[in-house]
């Protein structure tokens, strides 16, 4: 792929000095029913550069949502550090935490259940700011509704059940924008929407990001969707990072066997006009190990065709291939 296709100004996305968010050694563990511990996120470090969109890609149970929520301290991570503009969030609670993370907002997968069914759109949008004791003008609500592509007159008095899923997601985005965020964390924001609506919301997020100068974390399972919106993509498997890859390299230069498995599984690879040349990685074991007792060493080794002894004894560190492209695999050729 030629470099000219990348619309981002910097050749290596996310490599700027302005880091909005710095996450180090994040660990999220939950007590499991009947004893044991769910290892949801096990030592994940990454950063988010100013104006960047970082995609977090993985399947259910890979820890992508847990990581996203841990950044918001919902709930607080077991250990690790989350710094927003250099201010540590971990260890704070109550009012102190709320004021420190106020410029970080989150939208979720199910827009309908994210909204209080008894409130009207005009109040839903203003809700967050009112909780902070700010006066919210009707003008401001109208402006935000227009910004997310809703007609204020048409939706003003409506309640969530009177809107479509796409319209509810737009309301959620307007709510998040009301608090003037710097970082927007989107957890599967389009996975419950129709294709044409999904395209509308993806375009809207892209526009919103430019217009309000946001940095974004975009968590999703759909490879093409993540690739479309991200500058860099972090691929997770069972609580660990497999690969951090510039988005324009995803389709052709993925190095980790798990990323390759994902690419090979996409329905798009089976389309009649697919120009994707995906290699068959030869993963035959479909079984995802339990996060209660993750495999030693590399967590993908139980399904990996390349696995050898070292994979069981040592967890592979992230190694850099080209600038900005990191892979955690003993056998990947960097």
């Amino acid at each position, binding site marked *: 792929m030629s470099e000219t296709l990348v619309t981002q100004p910097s050749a290596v996305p996310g490599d700027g000095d302005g880091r909005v968010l710095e996450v180090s050694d994040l660990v999220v563990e939950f007590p499991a029913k009947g004893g044991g511990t769910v290892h949801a996120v096990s030592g994940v470090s990454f950063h988010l550069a100013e104006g960047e969109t970082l995609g977090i890609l993985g399947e*259910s149970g890979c820890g992508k949502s847990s990581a996203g929520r841990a950044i918001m301290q919902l709930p607080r991570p077991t250990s690790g550090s989350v710094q927003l503009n250099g201010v540590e969030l971990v260890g704070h609670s109550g009012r102190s935490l709320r004021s420190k993370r106020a410029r970080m907002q989150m939208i979720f997968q199910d827009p309908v259940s994210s909204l209080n069914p008894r409130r009207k759109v005009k109040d839903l949008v203003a809700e967050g700011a009112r909780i902070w004791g700010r006066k919210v003008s009707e003008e401001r609500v109208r402006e935000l509704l227009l910004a997310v592509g809703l007609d204020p007159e048409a939706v003003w008095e409506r309640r969530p059940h009177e809107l479509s899923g796409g319209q509810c997601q737009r309301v959620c985005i307007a709510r998040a924008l009301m608090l003037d965020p710097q970082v927007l964390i989107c957890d599967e924001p389009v996975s419950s929407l129709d294709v044409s609506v999904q*395209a509308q919301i993806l375009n809207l997020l892209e526009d919103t990001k430019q217009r309000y100068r946001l940095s974004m974390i975009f968590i999703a*399972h759909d490879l093409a969707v993540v690739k*479309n919106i991200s500058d860099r993509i972090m691929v997770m498997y069972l609580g660990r990072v497999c690969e951090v890859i510039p988005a324009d390299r995803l*389709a052709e230069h993925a190095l980790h066997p798990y990323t390759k498995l994902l690419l090979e599984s996409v329905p798009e690879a*089976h*389309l*009649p006009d697919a120009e*994707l040349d995906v290699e068959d990685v030869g993963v035959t074991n479909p079984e995802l190990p339990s996060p209660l007792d993750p495999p030693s060493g590399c967590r993908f080794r139980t399904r990996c065709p390349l696995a050898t002894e070292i994979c069981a004894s040592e967890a592979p560190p992230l190694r850099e291939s080209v600038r900005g492209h990191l892979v955690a695999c003993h056998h990947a050729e960097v």
Partner: protein
Amino acid sequence: MTSNQTLETVPDSGRPDRGQLLAVEDVRTTIHTARGDLKAVDGVSFTLDRGETIGIVGESGSGKSVLGRTIMGLHTTGPTTTISGRVMFDGRDVQSLGVKELRSLWGARIGMVFQDPMTALNPVKKIGTHLTETLRKHQGLGRQPARERAAELLDLVGIPDPRRRLDQYPHEMSGGMRQRVVIAMALANEPALLIADEPTTALDVTVQRQILDLLGTLQDELGMAIILISHNLGVVAGRADRVAVMYAGRIVETTDARSLFAGAHHPYSEALLRAIPRLQEPPHVRLAAIDGAPPNMITPPIGCRFAPRCAYAQDDCRQVLPELRPSSESGPRHLFACHHPVNRGDA
């Protein structure tokens, strides 16, 4: 093993490989709501051979799910619904069947996998009960053989530790696992027709692929026909012999996946193809979203239902409802309903 014998001695084991299994003839499903009559399905016709897969693609509200339920006989004419047209399944008119006959059809001859696995499962019944119920009713298995077979079925759909799972309740399983249970239930009696309504929408890509591969394998083994309903063109196109694109209660285009991707004639099909983000495109490519929303099906537009959102619409589109007609280019199996089709060399 008793259970294995039953597997092989399912009724009509001498199935013909081909031949028509299903004929849907001008089906209209009108739902009577407080706001008026909602024309959920509004004149759909197609046929399906034994062992064939048709993919029905459409967005929410296109009528694809109601069509699936109408074919199955879950919607019948009554106080809330009026159905016209005919659904001939294996030589029988589904709409003429009584509840008792329908019950012997459902779960035995026609299996259905619904969109939401949680609502397809009874929250107060164990997983095992869901499976043994259908096995005991339709195959007359005893308690223990049914349980054995249930465990086999769970194993078949890739659920680890099936025996333990039999004693769990639906809420103890993940969404993906629940959907596998629903698929196991649908396949329990090796139906002649499987109606899969968004079967993999809640599942991960690698699991989705496993489930679709699994459906394909089972289809080859059992000669089962599949109606695969999905909003995801990618899911449908890779697996179906034919694809039907639905919009506002009607099929607007139907052909094999290859010619649909190579040259969709209906502007809606074309728009749908363009709205999908593609892996082979660079990041930040602007997607071609379809503006507007599908029409209100209580008072649908008089002419073409897509006309209000269509970039190519002209006066006749707003007056006359286009009927399906064959493509002059890609052959008689490629039908489209548009006055001003796109991607045609001769147009």
